[in-house]
């Protein structure tokens, strides 16, 4: 065990920091859940790509740096400390990308990864359906083969598709065996959002912006080449993706360390230094964020040494989502009546609070995660 950084790691950190200092926009960009903001975030992603910082953990030939998880974590720390914009490319680069690299054909890798890395093509996820939320296996959207067997004909509806309002492509799973139930007979398919028959209906969220959307599929035709992984293997492919999402990449520790640093600054600026209750609460949060950072470094070292992350990713998901919510609830407490104002100096805290409320819900509710932990980590009997 050695927690000091190697010369190589320090060099990599320094390179990332230097580039970010030179390139991060001085002013925060408008939310990427607005049209203007989405465009500006896409431009930022293009600049990241030029610096080869958009997908550091990808192989070099696809625009990455072949960085291992440890270097990825270092980059993430520098990225969030620099105050750089949120990643509008997240669904692609952190969720779909690694899955394509894992199970995709060479043709698919060549076709999708570079455009994903440069955000020439931004991806939306299309996991849920109106009746398949927590119960994701009850997917109803259908995919049927065209008579000549060259195309999937897609029908149905997806919901809570983040980024879908302005994205170019989406990915999701469809029931391609009409007689199948639950996890069987599902296929993972990649779909251009400008395909005839696709209708995207934005859904306004708690803050009024449209961060996600419903997607309706009405005889949408896509080539069978858009199948990721085997026909009927969709559930396994999706779980690999979702597992990775919850596991390491969805929420790197750095953003929480930075959030807690901001909370500490807020406490120093407006808190009562003499109030131990708030002091202890802020300290607890620092310990949680630090604990999450250490936990991730340990997980990542385990992966580097050939281990694998399994259901423990559910433990991470509960931990970061509740920590993030708690941090923002504390900020609201510190702000008092000023927390009621939507615009103004504390806008980012109020927005952050609203967003943090979605943490225990998306990427699988924390109730579902607790079930997974109980069933697979604690080996308690299934209900």
């Amino acid at each position, binding site marked *: 065990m050695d927690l000091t950084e190697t010369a190589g790691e320090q060099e990599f950190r320094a390179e990332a920091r230097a580039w970010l200092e030179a390139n991060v926009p001085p002013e925060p960009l408008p939310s990427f859940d607005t049209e203007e903001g989405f465009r500006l975030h896409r431009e930022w992603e293009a600049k990241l790509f030029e610096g080869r910082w958009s997908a550091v953990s990808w192989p070099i030939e696809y625009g990455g740096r072949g960085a291992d998880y440890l270097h990825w974590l270092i980059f993430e720390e520098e990225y969030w400390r620099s105050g750089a914009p949120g990643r509008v490319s997240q669904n692609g680069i952190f969720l779909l990308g690694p899955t394509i690299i894992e199970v995709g054909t060479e043709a698919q890798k060549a076709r999708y990864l570079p455009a994903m890395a440069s955000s020439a093509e931004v991806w939306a996820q299309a996991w849920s359906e109106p*009746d398949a*939320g*927590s119960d994701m296996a*009850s997917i109803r959207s259908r995919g049927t083969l065209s008579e000549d067997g060259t195309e999937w004909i897609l029908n149905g509806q997806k919901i809570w598709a983040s980024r879908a309002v302005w994205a170019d492509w989406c990915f999701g799973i469809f029931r391609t065996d009409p007689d199948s139930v639950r996890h069987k007979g599902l296929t993972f398919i990649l779909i251009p959002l400008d395909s005839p028959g696709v209708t995207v209906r934005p859904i306004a969220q708690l803050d009024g912006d449209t961060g996600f959307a419903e997607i309706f599929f009405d005889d949408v035709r896509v080539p069978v080449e858009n199948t990721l992984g085997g026909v009927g293997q969709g559930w396994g492919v999706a779980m690999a993706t979702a597992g990775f999402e919850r596991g390491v990449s969805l929420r790197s520790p750095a953003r929480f360390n930075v959030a807690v640093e901001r909370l500490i600054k807020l406490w120093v600026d407006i808190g009562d230094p003499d109030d131990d209750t708030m002091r202890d609460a802020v300290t607890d949060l620092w310990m949680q964020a630090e604990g999450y950072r250490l936990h991730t470094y340990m997980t990542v070292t385990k992966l580097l040494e050939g281990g694998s992350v399994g259901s423990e990713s559910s433990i991470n998901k509960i931990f970061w989502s509740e920590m993030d919510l708690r941090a923002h609830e504390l900020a609201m407490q510190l702000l008092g*009546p000023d927390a*009621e104002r939507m615009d103004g100096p504390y806008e980012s805290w109020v927005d952050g609070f609203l967003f943090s409320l979605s943490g225990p*819900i*998306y990427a699988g*509710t924390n*109730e579902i995660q607790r079930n997974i932990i109980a069933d697979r980590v604690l080996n308690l009997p299934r209900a």
Partner: protein
Amino acid sequence: MQFSFTPDQREFAAGLREMLEREFTASHLRAVWDEHSGHDSALWLRLADMGVLGMMVPEADGGLGGDFIDTILLIEELGRAAAPGPVFETMTVGALALTGSRWAPGIADGSVAVTTALTGERYVPHAASSTVLLAAVGGEVRAIECADLGQATVDGIDRGRRLSAVGWAADRAVDIDVDIEFLVDAGALASAAYLLGLSSRMLAIAGDYARDRRQFGQPIGSFQAVKHLMADALLQVEFARPAISRAAWSHATDQLSRARDVSMAKSLASDAAQKAARSALQVHGAIGYTWECDLQLYMKKAWALIPAWGSASFHRRRVADAVLGPRLNG
């Protein structure tokens, strides 16, 4: 010792509840949000006609001459409906401060809406839709006609509560001779009762959804995780209720324990509302995170009122001073 409301008090509250369920549904509230007015004149006049607004206004001024005990259940019902505008402020702080003034009759007949800036807030709610502002100036209470205010309106998280930065010419302000702490306690107590109503409404909305929404082949309300989440929230709401009733009695009868009892009520009500909002949202899942879902109308009002009239921790400290003696390092 008799710790209950009279049949009259309960029936009046029940009548108000029926009226609001019929005439001020979530879609009415949403309309107020959409116009961004933060006010509903029709509802306001309806409440005046029923005698709700003038409950604490003396009969001589056209009110019902009731006290806080007569009023507290009504405010809970107004909270359940998230009635917009400075309704509990007008009914309690306004009526108590402006008794005998030229504004008092207007409170009862609905022509006068009273808003407040008594706890050093940077932004005054409802100033744009009110008649009179009661403001604290150097520990004294002043009344200013809102028409005489310079106002800059900003967005609040609750569209049923518009916020303004205000200013006024000193010569437009009228002295009001009433103890400011007495008024602040009235506002804190009324906001606690309003929060209690909001909490019940949020749990009711979550209960409807949990009965209706099916996953894994059964209503989600049949899962223990959902049952226990909501049961724990209900627990906090149910134990805030008697503290609020007692505080109403303490305020109405001016007990020595008034400050302690009001602070206990606001502290418990704020914590219960925080918990109810959080639990109701979690029960809904993603749908609760949408603008379309009515839950947000009540949740955001709760988030606005929890820090108003003194935060839960401010009031907890006030209780501590009464129960444990003042804090050493002040």
